[in-house]
């Protein structure tokens, strides 16, 4: 019995550290609607700075002072980031801020190694909490008890802050309806800045408090960020109590789950999230999102098919691309094939995100399923390459049909997180089912048939498929189906009123996007000759998101350009410099600031400005007027 009590308390201690970080993320999202990917980076910087301070100033005062000062210092960095970067992009399309914070995260990962060196750092133990307390023969670290107490204390302070202060009232009001708060004359700028500072402070404090139990290293951010997102979503976005309950739930399930299934940790949080979201679409304590007020950006600049001149230009670009094998060597061609494949992947997500308004955080699942489909068919059934390429993507199609059915019942960030959960479940199956998938050692030897083996032939194949896929999806965008899909994106109520079955349309779009991604994955398997669980992983999903956002969400061809720019730059930087993450992250941040509508979006805006001599269009874009639903 004592064991179960101790295990429960241990779970509570894990929950407390998770809660600190999650509560910050939840507050930030609730008010600013920013999906703050850099939250893990702030957590990590908090730990690094606290390490430096606690090493320099010893004693109880040095330790606890160091922890608090570190958190404050990082909060200051957060304020700087908010004022310099995020303020410029609040009015950018939804999720664009994700791109900016993603760029920051990349930069921080390289910066901490530059500043603090490559070694793992192990900090001091907390003065006064070094030992353990005996509980009927079981030891509980006293630091765990401290954390267990700290969780509810922080929860209480936050509750008081939100319920008993004017600032808290404003924050709650902004969480519910930030346009109304702005209309009432509250200075949003400082409200957002202060909220961001509080959120970052909590993240950094969470990081600093890990020093006595963890090692400080440069991958801490990625280790926590996804988990924290999941906790926030399970609890319900913007709900602090929800975050607390979710953190406890996840930690306790893990603490007891490993007693029965020692391998459960790898997937547990995602399983819990999938179940919670299917049963309660807005998390445990979340409320249905109020119908968002759309900015009129889309109506100001409606989509149109390409003019005949533009068609000719695209055709010319394709022809030029097709003559590449005459000029460049094998390596460039292989990179070209890879870029073409990522164009397929990006346009498939772009179709879902831009046309359907459904941002998937787990799109790599269908890419990877396509790749595994090919690998199974080629290695186990021994089918020829053409057949594999045709049938392989069906696995992606099937996956999208099953998961899409559940996912489209949700919307917004909840949709995104459910797709992430499904992707992680698929990933963990590929990872764990060693006898079939080979586990993380993957499936090797999936090389193309001799007719496609030469780099130029494979390049033409990839380029041809990419062109076909892009054209097909463009036709779909301007087909009645595409218009119906856009209708569900712009207004669910109105589209249903005119008789569109929104869920079915969205589901169909999901399956189309999943199958298309599967086509990309199928080609990828042959390009690399092997398939790994990586091909379904989070980082690939994030790559796809970044490509779409970089190109421009509110455009028709953003996916293509975003994929070409991001992939080419990424491959080139990794090959040329050791600090590829720093440079790439800096580049992304720069793009975010200079091109807040993405590369293609910005080009279109410039072209439009030139066409119109009168400026109202641009001023409208710069300061969107909120229109009531």
């Amino acid at each position, binding site marked *: 019995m004592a064991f179960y009590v101790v295990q429960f308390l241990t779970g509570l201690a894990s929950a407390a550290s998770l809660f600190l970080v999650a509560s910050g993320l939840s507050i930030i999202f609730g008010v600013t609607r920013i999906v703050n990917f850099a939250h893990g980076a702030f957590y990590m910087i908090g730990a690094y700075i606290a390490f430096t301070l606690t090493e320099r100033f010893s004693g109880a005062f040095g330790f606890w002072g160091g922890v608090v000062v570190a958190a404050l210092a990082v909060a200051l960095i957060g304020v700087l980031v908010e004022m310099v970067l995020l303020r410029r992009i609040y009015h950018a399309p939804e999720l664009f801020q994700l791109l900016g914070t993603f760029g920051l995260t990349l930069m921080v990962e390289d910066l901490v190694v530059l500043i603090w060196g490559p070694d793992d750092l192990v900090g001091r133990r907390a003065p006064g909490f070094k030992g353990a307390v005996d509980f009927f023969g079981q030891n509980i670290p006293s630091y765990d008890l401290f954390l267990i107490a700290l969780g509810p204390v922080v929860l209480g302070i936050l509750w008081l802050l939100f319920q008993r202060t004017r600032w808290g009232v404003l924050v709650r009001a902004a969480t519910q309806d930030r346009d109304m708060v702005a209309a009432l004359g509250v200075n949003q700028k400082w409200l957002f800045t202060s909220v961001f500072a509080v959120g970052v402070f909590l993240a950094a404090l969470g990081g600093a408090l890990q020093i006595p139990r963890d090692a400080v290293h440069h991958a801490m951010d990625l280790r926590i960020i996804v988990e924290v997102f999941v906790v926030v979503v399970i609890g319900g976005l913007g709900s602090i109590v929800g975050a607390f309950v979710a953190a406890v739930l996840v930690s306790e399930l893990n603490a007891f789950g490993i007693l029965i299934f020692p391998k459960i940790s790898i997937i547990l949080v995602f399983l819990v999230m999938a179940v919670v979201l299917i049963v309660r679409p807005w998390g445990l304590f979340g409320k249905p999102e109020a119908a968002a007020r759309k900015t009129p950006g889309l109506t100001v600049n409606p989509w149109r098919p390409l003019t005949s001149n533009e068609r000719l230009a695209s055709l010319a670009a394709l022809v030029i691309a097709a003559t590449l094998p005459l000029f460049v060597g094998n390596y460039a061609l292989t990179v070209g094939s890879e870029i073409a494949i990522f164009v397929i992947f990006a346009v498939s997500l772009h179709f879902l995100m831009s046309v359907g308004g459904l941002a998937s955080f787990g799109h790599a699942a269908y890419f990877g399923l396509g790749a595994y489909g090919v690998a199974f068919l080629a290695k186990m059934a021994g089918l020829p390459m053409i057949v594999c390429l045709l049938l392989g993507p069906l696995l992606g199609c099937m996956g999208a049909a099953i998961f899409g059915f559940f996912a489209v019942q949700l919307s917004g960030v909840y949709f995104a997180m459910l797709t992430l959960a499904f992707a992680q479940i698929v990933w963990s199956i590929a990872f764990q089912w060693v006898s079939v998938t080979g586990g993380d050692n993957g499936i090797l030897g999936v*090389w193309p048939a001799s007719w496609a083996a030469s780099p130029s032939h494979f390049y033409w194949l990839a380029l041809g498929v990419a062109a076909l896929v892009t054209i097909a999806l463009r036709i779909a965008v301007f087909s009645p189906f595409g218009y119906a899909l856009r209708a569900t994106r712009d207004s669910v109520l109105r589209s249903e009123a005119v008789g569109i079955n929104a869920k079915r349309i969205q589901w169909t779009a999901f399956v189309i996007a999943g199958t298309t991604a599967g086509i990309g994955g199928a080609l990828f398997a042959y390009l690399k000759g092997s398939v790994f669980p990586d091909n379904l992983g989070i980082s690939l999903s994030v790559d796809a998101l970044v490509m779409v956002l970089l190109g421009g969400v509110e455009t028709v061809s953003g996916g293509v350009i975003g994929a070409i720019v991001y992939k080419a730059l990424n491959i080139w930087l990794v090959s040329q410099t050791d600090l590829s993450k720093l440079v790439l992250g800096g580049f992304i941040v720069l793009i975010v600031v200079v091109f807040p509508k993405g590369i293609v979006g910005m080009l279109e805006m410039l072209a439009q400005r030139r066409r119109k001599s009168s400026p109202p269009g641009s001023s409208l874009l710069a300061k969107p007027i909120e229109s009531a639903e």
Partner: protein
Amino acid sequence: MRARNYFVGAAFALLAAGMGHSALAQDIKIGEINSYSLLPSFTEPYRKGWQLAVEEINAAGGINGKKLVVVSKDDGGKPADAQTAANELVSSEGVAMLTGTFLSNIGLAVSDFANQKKVFFLAAEPLTDAVTWSKGNKYTFRLRPSNYMQAAMLVEAASKLPAKRWATIAPNYEYGQSAVAVFKKLMSEKRPDIQWVDEQWPPQGKIDAGPVVQAVAQANPEAILNVTFGPDLVKLVREGNTRGLFKGREVVSFLTGEPEYLDPLKDETPEGWIVTGYPWYSIKTPEHDAFLKAYQAKYNDYPRLGSIVGYQTIKAAAAILAKAGSTDTDKMIAAAEGISMPSPFGEITFRKIDHQSTLGAFVGKTAQKDGKGVMVDASYKKGADYLPSDAEVEKLRPKD
């Protein structure tokens, strides 16, 4: 920095040859790939190691009079990116052979690439047995002692322990899984009386150490096998120390004696764990002394195991190239099979039968000295003594 080194190397080549671009064509280029951005704590010393080797080789006149140039790429910890890098090195840089890699899946991906493109590949670090056995191919050689060899070295010491109830803690991926599987198999062969009472599989890099430690303690084992390393190991050791998990229990642990993983533990270093590792401070052989002196003179830092791996990888590559007298792949394979060469750990041989080198490892016990973790009672285990019989290897490895 890599690009810069390459350019510096190229500039030196120009100066030395005293002529234009044609001199560069005379150089021998080796391609090197590793997870520099993902695993800097291993790869930074590793890079220093191979840079020292390149310097020494060129100072001694290069390879059969030709200057050696290493072109190095980062794989970011992703097999697909490693293949892009391998492709660039082979197609664009025209390297004579590929070397490097750390993670097992990346080692396998590059090995499969080498097999497909008929390129010589000298794997430096990936430990999975598959590289030389179940997925071995004629183009791939490996330097470091494999999972099997390290497990066999540890079993030799572990089987002498009186403990009968064993628990295992290992990261939940191929490396952890195969390390535990081999250890269990070899242990149970030597000691049929052993019981395996618990196993924990925390996700790599994400251990929730408290509950794991508690769960293992609950099973009340007499001895524990640990395979976690890096930050996971730190968390496990700290929780284990506080909760008294290691008190009165024997612990056998993979890799923990390597400075990369032992040094961060400082005054938390547990006493008396049986580990594999690299006690650079207590190795007193002329070969190692020479290496240590050169390394410390160049970097003003002590070597980690990564330094040895990087150093010996390039030394081995150079030895193979020198013996082959050519950059022709088949000639290099013929030269590499059965080649013997000196190393800081003594002479090693690349076996003809499975392309595994006989580089060994040190097995010893952990201890604390002046608040720092060290390995004591360490002895070098020759790799050749811990490999299965040739007949067994024949069965494990597909025919070329």
